[in-house]
């Protein structure tokens, strides 16, 4: 699907582990996610939805995403 090899999460680090940042993508569009420091959430730019990270566990159920 043309996903390039560039890191999926820019600025990932303290929010979630490196392993997760390498393999997690947006559950709906399968596009890369961006880590947002202020809101501690993962943002999918392609569908403009942010997924929360609760106690270090990213929550990527489509229903939990916020517009």
């Amino acid at each position, binding site marked *: 699907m043309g996903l390039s090899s560039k890191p999926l999460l820019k600025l990932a680090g303290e929010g979630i582990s490196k392993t997760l940042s390498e393999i*997690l993508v947006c559950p709906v569009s399968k596009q890369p996610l961006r880590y947002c420091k202020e809101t501690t959430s993962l943002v999918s730019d392609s569908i403009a939805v942010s997924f929360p990270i*609760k106690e270090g566990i990213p929550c*990527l*159920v489509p229903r939990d995403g916020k517009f």
Partner: protein
Amino acid sequence: MRGTLSLYQRTSQLLFRGRRRATNETYTLIPSISYCTNIDNNTIDGLQSPRVKIFDREFKRKQRDRAAWLMRPGDPFVDAVADNLLDRLEDCKKTFPTALCLGGSLEAVRRLLRGRGSIEKLIMMDTSNDMVKLCKDAEAAQQDSNQNIETSFVVGDEEFLPIKESSVDLVISCLGLHWTNDLPGAMIQCKLALKSDGLFLAAILGGETLKELRIACTVAQMEREGGISPRISPLAQVRDAGNLLTRAGFTLPGVDVDEYVVRYSSALELIEHLRTMGETNALLQRNNVLKRETALATAAIYDSMFAAEDGTIPATFQVIFMTGWKEHPSQQKAKRRGSATISFDDLQKQFSSDS
């Protein structure tokens, strides 16, 4: 001529009635064109929304939250299934550095891994927040051979797998996938997440599961309420499992079945067990009311129809184990059609001349 006219009138009347019915009734059943995954559009990335919704996924999530609170570690049935599934890792020479573990009995899989498949990185995913948290706490408390596995936790839905394509070597799902509305779609997404030559291992409950309870429920409801409503979800049959694997595009598909008979002291205990496993009814069209009378009648009928001599009641669980690989050039496969160079006639001549 008159005949045609009346026919015309009748048709128009029928049409009119049909339209009116559609506007009046709020709950009309709209027949769907196909009862399976939509193949025509956007299957390229395996991200289709299921047309037919059978299960209430949101409710299942809540049930799994509750199961996390109720769960006792070391459930013999769950452990037996997880152990059986993980044994399959020992049968392959390949190692699986990165593994993804999906829903169902997560905690059991994690606990019973014991270095099988030489997993280095394990990602555990479940739809329930509390279940994932429970696993995280269990991992922190555990002091054993699983220490060297780097474990990460994600809350995610099997129907919307948030995993990058070609990123894991192994996908394990132990007793979780039978609650997905779109099983082929979920399996296609698993296949996409796998690296080339990666293994898909899954255990799902099969159609024979809880047949005794199914019968007891039906009889009790007929007797007390004069009708039946689905209490137990439709499950995949063994023959479907093979088709599912091939349809999702796995190579070297393998399916086998195991039947476990668990004995309980009463039907109420069986329900309690189902609750701690998070396997209670989550059908969308379920009946929300269960009368106390019907429930007790079910227990009584179960007891009188199936009880063993020692007073315990058996419950059958049919578990279907599925294995499939993502294609890789090194795997064995049938030769291309028409690529043979020797005729069968020649073979026969060869053998007859030998004898």
